[in-house]
C-alpha cells in the first residue's frame, strides 16, 4: 500500500506492506536511524517519536496509521545548525551514556517543556517513566531537562 506522511517537515510517500511498523518505516525505508528499536512491547521507549505533536512509541504504531499525519524524529531537534536546548542540556549534564535511549528521551523532554516550561523534578520523572535507560540511573536525564528549562531556545547554544 502507498503511505504518505510528513516527516520532519517533508512529505514522503512510500509503498509498504500494511503490517510495517512505523519504527521500521522510519529506520529502514527513510534511513532515519536516530530512532531506535528496543522491545516490541511498548515498554522501553527507545522508539519514541512525535506523531501530530504527541510522543508515541513507534514500535506499536503501523506506518499506515501515520498516513496523513506529521511525524517528528530526533533528527529534527537541531534547527539551522543550532541544537535544541534539550540536546544541549543532555550534553552539559551528562544525560546520556550509550546514547540508545537518548533520542526518545529528548523527544519526550521537548514535549514536556513545550507544555510545562519549568517542570519540577517529579514532573520530569513522571514524563519519562514510560522509557527505560540502563546507563544513567535517570539522575542526569532529570538534570538535563532542568538545564533545558532554564536555558530557553532563544539563547545561542553550540555543541
Amino acid at each position, binding site marked *: 500500500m502507498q503511505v504518505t506522511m510528513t516527516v520532519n517537515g517533508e512529505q514522503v510517500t512510500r509503498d509498504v506492506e500494511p503490517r510495517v511498523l512505523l519504527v521500521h518505516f522510519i*529506520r529502514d525505508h527513510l534511513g532515519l536511524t536516530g530512532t531506535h528499536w528496543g522491545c516490541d512491547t511498548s515498554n522501553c521507549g527507545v522508539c519514541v517519536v512525535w506523531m501530530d505533536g504527541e510522543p508515541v512509541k513507534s514500535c506499536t504504531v503501523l506506518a499506515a496509521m501515520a498516513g496523513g499525519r506529521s511525524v517528528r524524529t530526533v533528527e529534527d531537534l537541531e534547527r539551522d545548525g543550532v541544537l535544541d536546548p534539550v*540536546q544541549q542540556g543532555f550534553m552539559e549534564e551528562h544525560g546520556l551514556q550509550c546514547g540508545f535511549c537518548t533520542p526518545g528521551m529528548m523527544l519526550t523532554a521537548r514535549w514536556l517543556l513545550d507544555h510545562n516550561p519549568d517542570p519540577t523534578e517529579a514532573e520530569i520523572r513522571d514524563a*519519562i517513566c514510560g522509557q527505560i535507560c540502563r546507563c544513567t540511573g535517570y539522575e542526569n536525564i532529570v538534570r538535563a531537562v532542568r538545564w533545558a528549562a532554564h536555558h530557553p531556545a532563544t539563547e545561542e547554544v553550540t555543541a
Partner: protein
Amino acid sequence: MTTVDANPIGFGRMKRKEDARFLRGKGNYVDDVQLPGMLHGAVLRSPLAHARIAKIDTSAAEAHPKVKAVITGATLETLGLAWIPALSHDRLAVLATDKVRFQGQEVAFVVAEDRYSARDALELIDVEYEPLTPLVDARRALDPGAPVIRDDIEGKTDNHIFDWEAGDKAATDAVFAKADVVVTQDILYPRVHPAPMETCGQVADMDKVTGKLTIWCTTQAPHAHRTLYALVAGLPEHKIRVISPDIGGGFGNKVGIYPGYVLTVVGSIVTGRPVKWMEDRSENLMSTSFARDYHMRGEICATRDGKITGLRVRVLADHGAFNNTAQPTRFPAGFFHIFTGSYDLEAAHCEVTGVYTNKAPGGVAYACSFRVTEAAYLVERIVDCLADELGMDPAELRLKNLLRPEQFPYTCKTGWVYDSGDYPRALRLAMDIAGYDQLRAEQKAKRERGELMGIGLSFFTETVGAGPRKYMDILGLGMADGAEVRVHPTGKAVVRLSVQTQGQGHETTFAQIVAEQLGIPPEDIDVVHGDTDNTPFGLGTYGSRSTPVSGAAVAVAANRVRDKARVIAAAMLEANPDDLEWEKGKWYVRGSADKAKTIQEIALAAHGNLVLPEGVEGHLDGECVYDPPNLTYPFGAYICVVDVDPGTGQVKVRRFIAVDDCGPRINPMIVEGQVHGGLADGVGMALMEVMAFDEDGNHLGGSFMDYLLPTSVECPSWELGETVTPSPHHPLGVKGVGESATVGSPAAVVNAILDAIGVRHADMPLTPAQVWRAMQGSPFRTDLAIT
C-alpha cells in the same frame, strides 16, 4: 547548574566528545549498518526446554519467494560448525542437532531479502520434537535419576559441571567450632539479565574475491571475537575484520560469541551477500548471557561482642545448558572467592558446585566483575543477619570489623591482595551524608506510629582490572591490553585502544589520559577503538577493566612519547636531556624556563629535518602492552533508606547515599554517571528483576512486560560522596568504577527493606507480593513458579 569544568588539559570534568553524534541521532549502531544487497537473518528457536529433535522440514521455508537460504544444524555439521567451544571448558550448540536444551535455543536460521520475510519463513519450518522431562530446579540437578541434559558429552551420566573451592577448610571449621555465635542463612541471588537497551546483533560480509570477512558486531571484545573466529572456523585472522561500532549498552551481555553471530557469517558465506541479524527483545532475554543464579548457604561466626571470626559458604551455581560463563580460565566461579569482602577475619572457605539445567547458558554478566556481585551480596546480607542475631546496629558491627588502613596491602583469607583502602573513612562519610543517627531516630519514632521505614548498609570491595597474564586468560588469551599513542607533525594526536566503549565515554576519558600525560588538549586527541584493523590487540571491555588495564597501557605509551620528546627537545635546545624538566605540555631547561619546547614544537621537529641524536628514530609515538601486576580494589559504602507500605508491601526507595573510592577520577562527571547507572541496577535487582521458570522450563521473564526494569519513578535522586585512595601499582593510581555500584547496591536496598519489616531474610526481588509474604513469615522462592 553546569557540571563541567572549562576545558581541562588532562583530568577534570569535561563534556563528552562522543555526545555530538548521539544527540543528533547520528550514532552508528549495528542495526544502522546498511550495505548494498544486504540480506536479513532470523533464528528459529525452540518452544520447549528439553526435547529430542526427530525431524526438521525446511522445504516450505525454502520455497518462500524471498528466502535465500535455510540453515539447520545438519548444514552446520557439514561445515564443522554445529558446535563451537564455549567460554568455559565446554562446547556450545550453534544450532541444535540432537536435542534442544532450553526454551529459546537456536534450531534453524533463515536468510531472506528483508526482515519481515525472514520472520515469515520461520513459521514455515516444521520441527518435530519428542518432549523430554526438563530439569528446571538447580537443587534437583544432582539427584539420582535427574534427566541428563548433556548426553552429547560421551560418558556423561549426570548434570555436574565442576567443584571448586578456595580458602582453608580446616582452619575455617576450627574457627567455627570455637565461635560464640554462628548464623546460617540460605541466600539466593536469582537469575537476572543485563538487558542492554540495544539487543545483540551482527552484520557479516564475506567478500569472496578478496576472502576478507568484515563483521559489524555488538561486541565488547572485538579482538577476542576475531581470534576466536580464526581458531574455531579456521578463517585466516588477517582476513577477518571485526568492527564494534556504537554499542547501545553492554553490561556483560555482549562479551561472548552467540550462535546468531556465527550464523550471519555462515549466511554470508552461503549466499555471497552481506547478512544482518538483530535479535528481538524476547530473544535477548531468553537466550543470551544471563547473570547470577547462585544458590548460597552462608555461615558466619563471631564473638559475642561482635568480632567476626569466620565465614564459609556453599554455592550451587546454575550454569544453564552449556557452560558458557565468561571469566578467566582458572576461575570457574569467577572472582566469587572475594566473598570475605571488606572484613578482617580469621578464616574463610567457599565451595562452589556448577550444574547444568535446561536454561540458557551464561552466568557472568550484568556488571558483575566476574561474580563479585554475588560475593558482595552474600557477605553484606549475612553480616546483617549476624547483626540481627547479636542485636547490634549494622553500622556498628561493620565499623568494628572493617579492615583498617594500616593493614594494606592486605592478603585476604582466600588469597586476594587488596592494594589500598581506607574503609572506615568511607563508611563514616556515608553515615555523615545520610545523617545516620537522625535516620535511626526517625525510624524509631515512625515504628511507634506503625510506619515501616528501613535503613540498609552495604560495604563492598571490588576486584577489577583483570588481569595479570601469568594467571589470567580467557580461552588461552592473556588478559593484557595494547595501546598506541601517535603525535602527528602538527601536535595533534591519535590513541588506539583495544577496549571498546558501550557508553562509558572512552573517547573522552582516554583523550584526557593522553592530555594529562602530554599536555595536548583532549579535543586535539582522536580516540580510535572498536575496529580490529585499526587498533592493537587486547581482550576488551568488561569486568571494569578498561581504565585499570587499558588506561594504564595508554598512560605508559604516552609516557614513552614524553620520554622520546625529551631527547628530541634536548637536541632542539642543544641541551643535555638530563637537564630538562617537564611541565605539562613542554620540556624546559632546568633553571631557564624561557628555554623550552612545547610538545607541538617537538612533534614538528620529530617529523622535520632536525638532526636527531644517535639511535633516536624520527616521528613521535609510543606503544605499550600492559600486563597488570595485580588487580585493583575499588570500594565503597552505601546506605539506602526505604519506606514500606504496611498494607501492600510496596517499597519506596526514599534515599540512596553512595560513597565510592575508585582512586583519582579522570573525569568525575563520567565516574558519577557510571555510579548512577549501577545504583539503578541495584534497585532493579532488589525490587523487580528476576528470570523465573515454570515446571516445564518456560521462561517467565521473556519480555519487558514480565522482566521488569527500574524507571525514573522507582529511582531516587542519588546522593554521592567520594574518598580517594590511589592504587599503588597503577601508573595513574586509578582503580576503575564501571561495576562498583552494581556490585555494592543490591545488598543495601535489600538490607533496608528487611530492616523496615523486621525480617531476617527474604530473597530478591522484593516485589510487593514478596515483601508481603515475608511479613507473614513465608517468603516465595523467587526462581521458580512451581506450585
